[in-house]
């Protein structure tokens, strides 16, 4: 039996807010969450900016995370847990009415943020704080879910992988509901110096909100973001049985490995193109149905060039007619959380018939000639949308979301 997989709940915690409505409003308005770093003294760093989750998050999270559990979590784990609780509330799902052995948690997590910026780490909590699997474990504990509960690490594609794997569990009939998503933060001195040494980060520190410039001629690297994104995936039959609101259908996806380089994407976007092609095939859709692409769009020289080439390779002449935008222009690159956060933004775009813009696109790159929805949102009906995630190590993912008839 092949079940349709639908999305019945979501939430985002990012530099632009702690809830769906605030994030969406700010994204549509083209606001940037990039600021000077406050989590540590970055004054001596080459890159001194990031899209930090506002400090008010700690107060906000106290209504969701008990003090005892909070002391065993990193700040990022608290983001993930809080985000999941709000997403569950959003879905209205009641696990008491479901078979908990058929409910799972799969998250994309690169690290838990147990770094030099993390506070109150002791010998007695450092293990729990450092366990990447703790993120899914805490959520499983909270709701007593007894299906598979694990994390996947595929760098910047991690939470897109989690969504794909969650889709598989439901589609194949092995689960009724799966909490999927991811959380991440690498805003610490070690990681920033590491990425600086790879020339991967923007050093356009002034003004911070102008630094992330996907597809722009003067882009100079990505801006680190942080946050969490969580979705409630459900079988269509489960969602219908409880009269749940359905926000979109996950129509399919593809995961591929470029097997090319530990850092650089495959030349001319060949690997990216293959991923997009396979996702379209997996979803059983026509290329003509794709009305929007939420790009990986990192603001690095190679990604933006190759992603553009990949889209052109897959869609041919129609590529120029498909709007493509990068959420990272506003919320930075949230690494392991990016696939989920951007997947949710894609769903909200379908749901609201609004495309979020690529901000800071003031100097178009003459070589990059797609419609990047520059600087201002746009109204548009969307039937099917893609969300791309491409990670260091050649981990590629493309998710396919379809409008669900109301």
């Amino acid at each position, binding site marked *: 039996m092949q079940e349709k997989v639908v999305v019945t709940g979501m939430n985002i915690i990012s530099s632009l807010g702690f809830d769906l409505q605030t994030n969406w409003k700010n994204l549509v308005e083209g606001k940037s969450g990039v600021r000077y770093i406050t989590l540590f003294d970055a004054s001596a760093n080459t890159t001194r900016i990031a899209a930090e989750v506002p400090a008010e998050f700690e107060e906000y999270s106290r209504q969701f995370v008990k*003090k*005892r559990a909070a002391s*065993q979590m990193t700040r990022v784990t608290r983001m993930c847990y809080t985000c999941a609780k709000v997403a569950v509330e959003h879905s209205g799902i009641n696990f008491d009415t479901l078979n908990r052995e058929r409910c799972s948690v799969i998250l994309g997590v690169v690290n838990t943020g147990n770094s030099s910026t993390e506070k109150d780490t002791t010998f*007695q909590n450092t293990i729990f704080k450092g366990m990447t699997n703790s993120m899914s474990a805490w959520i499983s504990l909270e709701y007593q879910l007894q299906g598979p509960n694990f994390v996947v690490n595929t760098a910047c594609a991690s939470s897109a992988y989690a969504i794909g794997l969650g889709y598989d569990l439901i589609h194949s009939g092995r689960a009724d509901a799966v909490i999927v998503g991811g959380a991440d933060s690498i805003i610490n001195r070690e990681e920033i110096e590491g990425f600086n040494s790879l020339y991967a980060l923007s050093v356009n520190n002034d003004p911070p909100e102008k630094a992330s410039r996907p597809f722009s001629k003067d882009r100079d690297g990505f801006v680190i973001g942080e946050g969490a994104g969580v979705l409630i995936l459900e079988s269509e039959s489960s969602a219908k049985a409880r009269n749940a609101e359905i926000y979109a259908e996950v129509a399919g996806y593809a995961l591929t490995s470029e097997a090319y380089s530990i850092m650089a994407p495959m030349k001319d976007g060949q690997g990216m193109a293959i991923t997009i092609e396979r996702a379209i095939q997996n979803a059983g859709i026509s290329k003509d149905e794709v009305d929007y692409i939420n790009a990986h769009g990192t603001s690095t020289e190679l990604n933006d060039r190759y992603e553009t080439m990949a889209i052109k390779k897959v869609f041919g002449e129609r590529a120029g007619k498909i709007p493509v935008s990068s959420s990272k222009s506003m919320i930075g690159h949230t690494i392991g959380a990016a696939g989920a956060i951007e997947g949710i933004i894609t769903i909200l775009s379908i749901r609201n018939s609004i495309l979020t813009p690529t901000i800071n696109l003031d100097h178009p790159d003459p070589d990059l000639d797609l419609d990047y929805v520059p600087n201002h949102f746009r109204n548009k009906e969307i039937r099917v949308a893609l969300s791309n995630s491409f990670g260091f190590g050649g981990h590629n993912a493309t998710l396919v979301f379809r409008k669900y008839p109301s």
Partner: protein
Amino acid sequence: MAHITEATKKEVKDIVYQFFADECEVNVATLNDSTNIIRDIDGDSLMFLELIEVFKKKYNLDIELKTIGKYAVKHPVETIGQLIDMQMLIIENENKLLEFDK
């Protein structure tokens, strides 16, 4: 071998009660010796280890965790009262805790 006075007993009891009230976010007045740590106040086994560390430092105890572990296997702790009793034994007997058990 430390001599346990009434003052020590009161001090240990106060520390344990306040610890659980703080960590489990419950009013200390709602706790009693029969309170089940996991079932009633959503506590966890790690709390037991944390309390041992508190008392090790406070009373400068010479006690190894494995000694306590061996004792606890035979004498599981479920309530606050049982935990206080065990802490008293640990303070009183330190690494001779298992000898006491014979």
